[in-house]
């Protein structure tokens, strides 16, 4: 049963799933470790009851394969063990765990946000040329509606509400290409302008054009940074169902500076090219992960 989950929450919080993780992870590859960090990142194999089978932390397929083989050998040995299986009591407590994913906007708009360096960016490591990252941007139903011109007239325009444009700029147009990076603060936003225009109508389908400009600048100290982009995109709105059926937005521009984990170096004052693609996310289970900065949405 393959599952992916966020390790900082699992190793530090007190919810039932976290406590279960904290028990078995200490039998794994980083058990007891605090230097250089206390992370418990990795790949773990466990029984449904949380009995440790094997673990590793690697990108090498052969090592993962060997770990899986060890895990399956131990799994067969533990099949008859009474506490290998999840107890009914534990299953019940796990079903009451609340996650940000519970707030997934079923009737709203969910975008995949992909970030990638554009040609000309400085490369310091072998993996930099092909690095990219993925996040999700959520909009509730009424927020999605606020992106659409109100009148069914060709040429009608709508300025995206400042609150939504700023949320996009602060939490999603961030330089996370090579690793996690914090969101911008409200004071860092210099420009967050985005508008849509009704380009054509085909039955219930409204074709929209999107444009805008964004700029953030966090000043001072070694963590000074910023992003400037121009927005250009298109979307299709189903006016009868009041939902987007297509959405493609490009934010292209420059970034500078660095944060602790985003693997930037060299001349951090130099502006280098970056691109973000925001497209409609599939509705499958793998795309229901909450945005990285969901707690800052204040939903």
């Amino acid at each position, binding site marked *: *049963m*393959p*599952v*992916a*989950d*966020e*390790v*900082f929450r*699992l190793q530090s919080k007190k*919810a039932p*799933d976290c406590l*279960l*993780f904290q028990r078995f992870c200490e039998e794994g590859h980083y058990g007891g470790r605090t230097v250089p960090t206390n*992370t*418990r*990142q990795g*790949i*773990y*194999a*466990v*029984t*449904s*009851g*949380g009995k440790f089978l094997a673990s590793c932390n690697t990108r090498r397929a052969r090592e993962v394969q060997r770990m*899986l083989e060890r895990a399956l050998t131990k*799994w067969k040995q533990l099949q008859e063990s009474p506490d290998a*299986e999840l107890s009914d009591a534990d*299953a019940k407590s*796990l079903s009451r*765990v609340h*996650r940000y*994913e519970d707030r997934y906007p079923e009737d709203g708009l969910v975008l995949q946000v*992909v970030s*990638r360096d*554009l*040609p000309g960016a400085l490369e310091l490591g072998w*993996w930099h040329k*092909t*690095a*990219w*990252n*993925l*996040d*999700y941007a959520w909009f509730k139903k009424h927020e999605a509606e606020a992106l659409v011109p109100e009148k069914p007239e060709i040429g009608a325009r709508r300025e995206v509400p400042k609150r939504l444009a700023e949320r996009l700029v602060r939490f999603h147009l961030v330089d996370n290409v*090579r*690793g*996690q990076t914090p969101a911008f603060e409200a004071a860092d936003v210099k420009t967050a302008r985005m508008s849509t225009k009704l380009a054509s109508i085909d039955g219930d389908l409204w074709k929209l054009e999107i444009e805008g400009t964004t700029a953030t600048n966090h000043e001072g100290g070694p963590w000074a940074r910023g992003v400037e982009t*121009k927005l*250009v995109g298109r979307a299709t709105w189903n006016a009868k169902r009041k939902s987007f059926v297509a959405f493609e937005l*490009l934010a*292209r521009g420059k970034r500078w500076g660095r944060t602790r984990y985003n*693997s930037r170096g060299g001349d951090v004052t130099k502006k280098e090219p970056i*691109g973000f*693609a925001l497209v409609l996310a599939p509705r499958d*289970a*793998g*795309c229901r*992960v*909450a945005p*990285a900065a969901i707690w800052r949405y204040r939903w």
Partner: protein
Amino acid sequence: MIRVMTTTRPVAALALCLCAASLAAQTTPETQSELDTWLAYVLPKPDELAWRKIPWRYELGTALVEAKQQNKPVLLWAMNGHPLGCT
């Protein structure tokens, strides 16, 4: 997390370099007509999405319950930042 192409494909890498060089020489895309080119550059290629072929659940707790129902062990991929999102 560092998302990189996990397959070594010299031909694909060369094609990417040539595409990048070509794009770098073009003027800044301000129009809808150039949108497709830049979206294709930024969005992940099929090789970069191989990990999504696995039917990952996204919460450990519900995966453990499902594993109990199906009498299966659990394989957990745990990272700083959710592995299916921003890492």
